């Protein structure tokens, strides 16, 4: 059986993980290692009047206690904002300072006030209790809608508004709304989520006073970028004096893209005490200080003509970005959100305004899907609301408005150009998979059991494979978004691939090896992958935005092409033929029209044992690198259909069936792709039914443990039916689009649409996320009391 592209080979990395042999940051220990514990603010918003560290410093086992003053005295800067946008009035995004230890003020519960470093973690924790902080409390800013008229959080951010941004043509959109025969209006809220990677964030920082360099092992999705930011922007030291390693990382979902205070503080302090420092977040700290996700309020107006064709869309959004601007916080609700508002629909006029607000809550940034789930949710909820208003089946209303397949490449009214896609077949296939046409029978059968059964559709598109650097740069990104790959062939023909992408659950060791196996005809076992170490890997941008394969895989193909090109020259020399006559197939270099051939291993040996070698035209060795910058985003799309049953006695929503038909372009490993789809849908079900990060009016996070923050578990999920269509990406060599975020993007509106459909016999037309049993039960009770009046 082939081990190459398209084969569902088992994951190379699983033996390690399944036998407990994974090596995570917290598993690594150094002699002389100390432990850090952070004193965090327990109030949402306050001036710091004083910090007394005397008792803590004198406590047993304490090595050092540092505060914001110490950081400032050393001139250490804060994390930077990686993407900014211009405001409607021409002013820039407001970027307030983000000190790694609070300097004079705290702005959310969990904000870092001081660090205690001790011989043991227990000693650090005990001493942290002795740090006396006197706060002068200020009003908390929690409610998003009133944030602009609430207490000032940063003096650099007037009205607590980081930016007020727009995209699209307001005049033509408002004209469409005025001339419409019907305007569908809807307000939706995208609930705030905590990312909850299985492995909490951790750091092991060391300083070597001989080489005068730092090494930081940390839980990062992009160690090279972490190195750049800490070295060049925060510490202002030569970049080469910091090595950042992200070893095995147990999930990220976006939350491990950014440089956080803790990692930087430990790195800085490791030099001050000249000893290694270990820090690992406990789960409560993760809840408090990992960047949260979502938290939007969207006001949507959809204009329809007499024939129920969409003629315009206006979306006014306010989003909660929290107390400080996290690295990509600005891009998420703007260019990763506003640009997706056309969805899979042909919409001639679109306008969106987004206000990014500061509140005294944890920073908010990218979380699986990052902006695209919010766009999909508001659009797909609106599509259902519109279908209901005009009395059409939601699938028919969508079909009527799909971008036709002969319209590609399709230029949307919100900046993006979709290269390829075909939306009807994926909807057809999903409907077939879930037996849509017989749904009413199932609804009637459920009704006999006293249950309300509903079906909900979501036809989504996303832009991933982030990103063409030129486009990202033009839109406000301060980084490029290419990827690097190197292929090192050993003398015996075994191969090591170095990638700038980072695997923290995606299975790169397998999929990248499959690409090598396909291209070079070598067995999968002969290919190893090295990633996550700034000392070993070329500069790369890491893994997020479903980019590893579409960008990093494409870079790998370019490097492999260079290997093949050089190998052909070696083969031509060895077989005394011209390069043009060398053909490479299934691991063999053959001279066309002859029976002469050399195996790939023979070429590798010749490259490293160059006894008979074309030295005059070729260098010895076989090792090639490539950087790849994509020409466009990739545009995965699909149709997800959820079927739910609601128990009116308890309000519990059970997801009873699921059909997903996605177009990810070509698949490298369908088994891994299916796993990504399952995981994404599970997270979407979590958002739609269970998860909600809740701050009380004083800015206290009340959902900071699994007692109060409900994660999806196996018994919350149905068995998923997963299928595919394929319109290969037109602009990368693999024809791939990316699959990591699709499930989380597609699924929340499918569930809520299904819940509303289930409850539609009661006259219920709205439901907010998460649709908890209490909320659903109350809605049912209210509808019955209305009916009784």
């Amino acid at each position: 059986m082939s081990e190459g592209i398209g084969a569902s080979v088992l994951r190379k990395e699983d033996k390690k993980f399944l036998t407990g042999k994974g090596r995570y940051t917290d598993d690594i220990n150094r002699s002389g290692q100390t432990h850090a514990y952070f004193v965090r603010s327990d109030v949402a918003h306050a001036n710091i009047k004083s910090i007394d560290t005397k008792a803590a410093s004198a406590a047993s086992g304490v090595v050092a206690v540092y505060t914001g003053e110490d950081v400032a005295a050393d001139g250490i800067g804060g994390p930077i904002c990686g993407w900014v946008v211009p405001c409607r009035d021409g002013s820039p995004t407001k970027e307030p300072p983000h000190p790694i230890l609070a300097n004079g003020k705290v702005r959310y519960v969990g904000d870092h006030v001081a660090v205690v470093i001790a011989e043991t973690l227990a000693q650090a924790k005990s001493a942290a209790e002795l740090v006396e902080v006197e706060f002068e409390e200020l009003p908390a800013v929690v409610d998003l809608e009133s944030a602009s008229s609430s207490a000032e959080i940063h003096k650099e951010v007037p009205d607590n508004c980081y930016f007020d941004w727009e995209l699209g043509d307001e005049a033509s959109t408002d004209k469409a709304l005025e001339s419409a025969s019907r305007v569908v209006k809807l307000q939706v809220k995208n609930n705030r989520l905590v990312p909850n990677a299985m492995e909490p964030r951790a750091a092991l920082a060391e300083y070597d006073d001989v080489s005068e360099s730092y090494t930081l092992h940390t839980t990062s999705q992009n160690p090279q970028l972490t190195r750049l930011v800490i070295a060049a922007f925060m510490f202002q030291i030569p970049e080469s004096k910091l090595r950042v390693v992200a070893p095995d990382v147990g999930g990220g979902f976006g939350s491990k893209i950014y440089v956080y205070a803790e990692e930087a503080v430990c790195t800085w302090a490791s030099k001050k005490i000249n000893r290694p420092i270990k820090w690992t977040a406990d789960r409560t700290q993760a809840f408090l200080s990992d960047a949260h996700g979502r938290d939007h309020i969207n006001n949507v107006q959809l204009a329809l003509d007499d024939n129920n064709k969409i003629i315009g869309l206006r979306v006014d959004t306010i989003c909660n970005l929290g107390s400080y601007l996290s690295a990509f916080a600005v891009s998420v609700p703007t260019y990763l959100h506003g640009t997706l508002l056309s969805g899979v629909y042909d919409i001639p006029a679109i306008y969106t305004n987004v206000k990014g607000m500061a509140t005294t809550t944890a920073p908010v940034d990218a979380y699986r899907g990052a902006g695209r789930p919010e766009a999909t949710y508001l659009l797909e909820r609106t599509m259902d609301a519109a279908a209901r208003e005009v009395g059409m089946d939601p699938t028919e209303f969508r079909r009527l408005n799909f971008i036709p397949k002969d319209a590609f490449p399709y230029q949307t009214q919100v900046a993006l150009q979709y290269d390829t896609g075909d939306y009807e077949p994926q909807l057809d296939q999903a409907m077939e998979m879930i037996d849509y046409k017989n749904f009413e029978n199932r609804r009637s059968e459920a009704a006999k059991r006293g249950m309300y059964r509903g079906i909900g559709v979501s036809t989504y598109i996303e832009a991933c494979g982030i990103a063409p650097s030129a486009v990202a740069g033009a839109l406000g990104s301060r980084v490029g978004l290419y990827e690097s790959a190197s292929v090192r062939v050993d003398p015996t023909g075994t191969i090591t691939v170095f990638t700038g992408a980072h695997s923290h659950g995606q299975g790169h060791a397998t999929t990248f090896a499959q690409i090598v196996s396909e291209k070079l005809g070598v067995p999968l076992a002969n290919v190893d992958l090295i990633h996550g170490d700034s000392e070993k890997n070329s500069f790369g941008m890491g893994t997020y935005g479903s980019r590893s394969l579409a960008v990093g895989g494409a870079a790998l193909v370019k490097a492999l092409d260079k290997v093949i090109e050089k190998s052909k020259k070696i083969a031509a020399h060895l077989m005394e033929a011209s390069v043009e006559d060398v053909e490479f197939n299934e691991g063999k270099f053959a001279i066309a029209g002859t029976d002469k051939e050399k195996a790939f291993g023979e070429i590798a040996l010749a490259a490293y044992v160059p006894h008979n070698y074309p030295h005059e035209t070729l260098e010895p060795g076989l090792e090639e690198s490539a950087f790849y910058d994509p020409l466009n985003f990739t545009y995965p799309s699909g149709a997800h259909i959820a079927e739910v049953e609601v128990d009116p006695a308890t309000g519990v929503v059970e997801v009873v069936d699921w059909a997903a038909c996605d177009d990810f372009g070509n698949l490298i490993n369908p088994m891994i792709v299916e796993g990504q789809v399952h995981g994404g849908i599970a997270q979407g079900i979590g958002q739609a039914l269970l998860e909600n990060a809740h701050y009380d009016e004083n800015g206290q996070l009340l959902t900071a443990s699994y007692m109060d923050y409900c994660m999806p578990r196996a018994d919350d999920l149905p068995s998923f039916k997963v299928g595919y269509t394929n319109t290969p990406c037109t602009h990368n060599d693999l024809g791939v689009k990316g699959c990591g975020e699709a499930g989380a993007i597609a699924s929340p509106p499918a569930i809520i649409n299904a819940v509303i459909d289930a409850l539609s016999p009661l006259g219920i037309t709205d439901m907010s996320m998460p649709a908890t049993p209490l909320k659903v039960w109350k809605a049912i009770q209210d509808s019955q009391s209305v009916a009784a009046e």
Partner: protein
Amino acid sequence: MEIKNSYELPLSKERVWAALNDEEFLKRSIPWCEKLERRSETELAAEVKLKIGPMSTRFTGNITLSDIDPPNGYTITGSGKGGIAGAASGSAKVKLLENKDASSTTLSYEVSAQVKGKIAQLGSRLIQSTAKKLSKNFFGSFVKQLEDMDKPQ
């Protein structure tokens, strides 16, 4: 967070009021109270050990009495620090109302409380039930002590 409750005590209003102002008596009525010292007419220092959900914490703090209207009631305002578990602050309006037969008194209180830090993160939804349990214990032992004092020795 708001907590409201009332108790009917089989005692005269004056008796209840006197007991409510006797810190030694109060201390004996609060099994989880480790220290209660009067600092002035209106100020007390307290140390209590409490278990809220998964957390067992010692709070130290100050209590201030205001709106003192003998024997009809007062307002207790306090704040306590529980170290790494966070902090709590709040006030309670305590009112005494003599019942018709003059031999019993209704004590009602309205608490408004704020919790911070770990208590909020881990225990906020347990606070109502914890407060209910604690006040039930308190008034139980409050009444029992007064009754014991009335018994012939």
